[in-house]
């Protein structure tokens, strides 16, 4: 067995990023105690008219969409055989696994009574509810992602036989991942088809499940690009030669894929507008906001992605990935918060309290800390020397 090279560099613990993360985590711990002892009303602005707030709009809807990089990257590599993207698979699987795990964690804050989490799956299935379908898929997909992630942990822990057994399941796990993602990404959109009278007609459509699924694809690809650019900036020393060599091809390939999917997304959104004959709403305030989302945060980034791919401008593509991620967050916020209950007077509309925002930041901070721990200790951004080219 070859000796493992140490990739753990000694860096000072007290850095500006660590201090900010520490403050967010400390505040989050206090708010967690408040939430689970005092109830929702102590830390949120939720009420009977607005029972779903930022914890659903951001933590759940954005979390699930942005974690789609796991199934898009692994299906590109293992189903479509694009092995040149192999070095992106592990970081993408890790991000997806953490994303979904944090979605489930965040859901506890909204739903409460965490000990009852297994009830909808094992005791009392509400099979006519879309929420049941979402819950079941997230439960199954989180399990799939956990299993997909374990080879890296087994390499780190030194369990080669267990690792070998899991690696043999790769194609099965990838197919399961695509199937389950297709189901629950679309079901999250389908969830909002139950509220035609509450959601603004420009966002409400019978095609909402399709919109959510298609947008999750370019959200996932953009998130992989965004996370990759951050990893290159802050964890360059953890990357091996293969990772660095393949990174440019990954950025160009993912940028191209995201651009084309986004163009298709714009096309089906226009078809949705036309089918429901909602053109006249475009000339209202909400129409301007809708056009800002569709043109400013989907069509334009798609075009800039294309320019970046044509010019082979890596930095432009990475910046466009941030733009696209913001666009996805805006879309999910529009559907779950801004265009939701749009007919209510502003006094009765929901606006998140600072404690809700702090809890969401707390969840993100937990994700960053775990991501840093895992990528520092496990072979995520580099190939373990004992298993090089063993895939």
């Amino acid at each position, binding site marked *: 067995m070859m000796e493992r090279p140490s990739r753990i560099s000694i860096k000072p613990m007290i850095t500006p990023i660590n201090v900010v993360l520490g403050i967010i985590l400390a505040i989050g711990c206090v708010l967690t105690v408040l939430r689970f002892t005092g109830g929702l009303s102590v830390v949120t602005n939720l009420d009977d008219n607005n029972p779903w707030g930022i914890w659903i709009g951001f933590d759940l809807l954005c979390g699930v969409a942005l974690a789609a990089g796991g199934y898009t990257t692994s299906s590109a590599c293992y189903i479509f055989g694009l092995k040149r993207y192999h070095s992106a698979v592990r970081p993408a699987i890790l991000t997806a696994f953490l994303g979904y795990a944090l979605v489930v964690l965040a859901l506890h804050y909204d739903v409460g009574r965490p000990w009852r989490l297994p009830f909808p799956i094992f005791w009392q299935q509400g099979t006519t509810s879309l929420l049941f379908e979402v819950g079941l898929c997230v439960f199954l997909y989180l399990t799939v992602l956990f299993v997909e992630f374990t080879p890296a942990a087994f390499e780190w822990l030194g369990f080669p036989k267990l690792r070998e057994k899991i690696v043999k399941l790769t194609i099965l796990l990838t197919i399961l991942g695509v199937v389950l993602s297709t189901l629950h990404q679309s079901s999250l959109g389908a969830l909002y088809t139950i509220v035609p009278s509450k959601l603004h007609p420009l966002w409400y459509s019978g095609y909402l499940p399709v919109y959510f699924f298609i947008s999750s694809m370019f959200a996932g690809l953009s998130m992989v690009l965004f996370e990759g650019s951050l990893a290159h900036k802050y964890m360059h020393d953890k990357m091996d030669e293969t990772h660095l060599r393949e990174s440019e091809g990954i950025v160009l390939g993912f940028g*191209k894929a995201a*651009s*084309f999917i986004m*163009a*298709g997304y714009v*096309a089906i959104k*226009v*078809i949705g507008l*036309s*089918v*429901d*004959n909602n053109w*006249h709403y475009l000339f209202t305030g909400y129409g301007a906001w809708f056009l800002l989302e569709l043109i400013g945060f989907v069509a334009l980034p798609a075009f800039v992605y*294309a320019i970046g*791919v*044509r010019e082979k401008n890596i930095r432009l593509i990475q910046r466009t990935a941030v733009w696209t991620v913001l666009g996805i967050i805006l879309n999910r916020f529009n559907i779950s918060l801004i265009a939701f209950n749009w007919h209510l007077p502003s006094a009765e509309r929901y606006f998140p309290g600072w404690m809700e925002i702090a809890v969401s930041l707390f969840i993100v901070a937990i994700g960053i800390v775990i991501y840093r721990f895992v990528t520092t200790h496990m072979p995520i951004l580099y190939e373990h020397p004992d298993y090089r080219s063993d895939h």
Partner: protein
Amino acid sequence: MEIFYSLQEFMTYSKGITYLIMGAILILMPLYWLFLTDRDEKKETY
């Protein structure tokens, strides 16, 4: 804004526009693909 007196009128109008848009998309998407890929290295496929 158009006024429709029956579902058939509404469907005829909205579907008519939709089919025109779909035709435009069928032409525009391949053009966009060409725009996206025309600087790629050409692969010999024979």
